[in-house]
């Protein structure tokens, strides 16, 4: 529902509901406030609901993919509090996330301050949320789902005591199990806890015991965190949001100052970096910075960040400023310590630094030409990154043009005296050419292992004005099939 509202898809007043295909037809999966007020509940059949509710109901189709994406975005945002954020899995019906704030809460001024900040920001972003902090993920989930409204903080060691009064549904059990427990009169978690374990396991399997142990903390529960391995990264928060380009560059430089020794210890250099800028209003801007060679010099990185920001210019919408700047090494490669000390004295390293500058300043890659294994002219050459090892060109090839057109252009009104000879005059690019001299033909057959094609007869011709062209006749020709000519390139 929140996703729809934030995307502006549910603008009108009145009850809205999200429906998806379920057993027995379309069933409601999510509701908004007015719909709840009409007595609707998730899981009801849409047809019955329509008949019961007097007012028109706005139905939206469920889009699990978009919901997963929205949750992913929210989790990414929540990484501002702690690096370990795990979205809910299917057991928790995928509508929330865990944050492991152990060792991170002091950065926000304590657990209570962190919870308040999280609640305040979510409320400001119009995301309704129930927040709970407990010793275990299961405990926190139970308290958030079934505990008191608002943000709930359970002091360390008291989670088990708080859980006992909650209904069994809070244990993340399957529907049949929880209804079964209820039928036996076990409504609270405390009731289940009081029973002998062996009987419970015989009756309901191991699931309730496992969930109970995880919630109370008798058994560990590993989370599946969202993040990639962010071993080399740093973040800096600002009390006063920053907006100027120089400040962002200075922040990246000091972050790289922190990261560089760690990289050096690991014998690595950064090949790609991501600079994430968190704006005050919650928007996020990620800038990717690629390097042609492993690099860990803070000055060099700062220079590239500066060039990248320069290229963005006004495109970097600082708004009211950025409050957090995060620098992450997204790709690292081994880098020998000698490279760093040389510091760009070799020609190759200076070209590497030029290539990086160009990539950041105008966003273009430096390339070079490389021969390919093919005898068909248009396939005999490719473009490779400049850093690729240069391959030598074959030296035994007959004369080739200086400029080869990517697509050969048809020559029209061709007049040839001999049927198998070069043309005498022709029209190309709205201009008439008269041939003064010609050399050829050079027959180039198509590659039989590819598509079928006709062999081409290439001629080098010189026009009366002095231009030299590379023409070819496509395929065989005869009485019923006149020869077709194409211009494929130009000689100096």
């Amino acid at each position, binding site marked *: 529902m929140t996703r729809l509202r934030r995307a502006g898809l549910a603008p009108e007043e009145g009850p809205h509901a999200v429906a998806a295909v379920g057993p027995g037809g379309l069933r409601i999966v999510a509701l908004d406030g007015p719909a709840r007020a009409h007595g609707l509940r998730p899981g009801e059949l849409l047809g019955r609901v329509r008949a019961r509710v007097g007012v028109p109901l706005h139905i939206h189709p469920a889009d699990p993919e978009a919901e997963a994406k929205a949750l992913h975005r929210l989790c990414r945002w929540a990484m501002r509090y702690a690096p370990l954020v795990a979205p809910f899995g299917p057991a928790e019906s995928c509508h929330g996330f865990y944050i492991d704030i152990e060792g991170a809460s002091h950065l926000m001024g304590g657990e209570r301050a962190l919870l308040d900040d999280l609640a305040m920001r979510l409320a400001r972003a119009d995301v309704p949320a129930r927040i709970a902090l407990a010793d275990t993920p299961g405990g926190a989930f139970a308290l958030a789902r079934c505990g008191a409204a608002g943000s709930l903080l359970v002091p360390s060691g008291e989670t088990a005591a708080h859980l006992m009064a909650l209904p069994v549904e809070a244990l993340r059990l399957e529907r049949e199990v929880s209804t079964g427990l209820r039928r036996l009169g076990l409504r609270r978690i405390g009731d289940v806890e009081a029973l002998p374990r062996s009987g419970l396991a015989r009756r309901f399997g191991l699931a309730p015991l496992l969930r109970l142990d995880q919630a109370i903390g008798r058994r560990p529960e590993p989370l599946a965190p969202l993040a990639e391995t962010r071993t080399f990264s740093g973040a800096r928060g600002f009390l006063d949001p920053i907006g100027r380009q120089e400040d962002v560059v200075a922040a990246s430089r000091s972050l790289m100052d922190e990261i560089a020794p760690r990289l050096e210890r690991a014998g690595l250099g950064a090949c790609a970096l991501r600079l994430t800028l968190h704006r005050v209003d919650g928007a996020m801007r990620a800038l990717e910075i690629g390097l042609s060679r492993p690099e860990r010099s803070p000055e060099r990185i700062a220079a590239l960040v500066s060039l990248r920001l320069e290229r963005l210019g006004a495109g970097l919408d600082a708004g009211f400023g950025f409050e957090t700047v995060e620098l992450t090494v997204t790709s690292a490669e081994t880098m020998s310590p000698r490279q760093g000390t040389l510091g760009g004295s070799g020609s190759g390293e200076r*070209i590497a630094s030029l290539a990086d500058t160009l990539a950041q300043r105008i966003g273009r890659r430096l390339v070079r030409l490389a021969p390919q294994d093919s005898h068909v002219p248009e396939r005999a050459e490719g473009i490779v990154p400049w850093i690729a090892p240069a391959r030598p*060109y074959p030296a035994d090839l007959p*004369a080739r043009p200086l400029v080869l057109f990517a697509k050969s252009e048809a020559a029209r009104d061709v007049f040839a005296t001999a049927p198998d000879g070069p043309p005498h005059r022709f029209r190309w690019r709205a201009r008439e050419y008269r041939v003064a*001299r010609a050399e050829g033909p050079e027959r180039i057959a198509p590659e039989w292992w590819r598509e079928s094609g006709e062999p081409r007869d290439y001629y080098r011709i010189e026009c009366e004005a002095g*231009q030299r062209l590379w023409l070819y006749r496509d395929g065989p020709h005869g009485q019923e099939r006149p020869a077709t000519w194409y211009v494929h390139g130009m000689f100096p």
Partner: protein
Amino acid sequence: MVQEPMRQPQEATVPDRLARLRLELSTGEATALPVMPLGLTAVDSHLPGGGLVLGPPHEVTPADPCDGTAALAFALALCARRLSGVPGEALIAAAPGHPLPYGHGLADLGLDPRRLLLLEAAGDREVFRALEAALHAGCLAALIGLVGEGLPLKAGRRLQLAAEGAAPPLLIILRPAGPGPPNGAATRWSISSAPAAVDRFGGLHAPRWRARLERCRNGRGGSWLLEWDSAAHRLHLPERLADDAAAAGRACS
């Protein structure tokens, strides 16, 4: 009373400064900058300093739309000449619409494709920015920019400033157009294909280009018929027409 001591030193320095400026002018800026000779006595003796001045950009334009390849070949021939003398690589930054050279055809110009770096830019502005960055980096032996519109004065000045010190030769290849307003370029060459000499066997002989020096800072214009020797990889004046071309060069100036 207060102004007196301030004015005195100023007046004393004015003649000195004038004398210094006159001295600077008489020595000439052309001799101060290094040059790259073309290897043709007739052309080099015509150019101030004895070659293409290194630092400011040089414009090369085809005389006709169908002479684009000749202009590119002329620039690449100069580039090959430079690369044969110094180590390092050359950069070609091209705006869209300009064909890039074909590696298999570069051997005729004596250029090793492995020493060529390419950059496909989205427009003239990007080409100039790339050339500027390359000049600042100072790690390339030659620079060629292929642009669509032309060289504006601002870009020309920026390039010249970026090339302070030991600079590689910088050639800008333009679309065919008449000489525009001054733009900081040292020379402007207009290149067109010319009919080659008749081979004994009726084949294609060495290609010839008509090179017109349309503009030359501190020098005169000229026109020469050049022939490319693809075996020795050098330009030369065709023997029989050498005298005529020199005469034509004199007549044009």
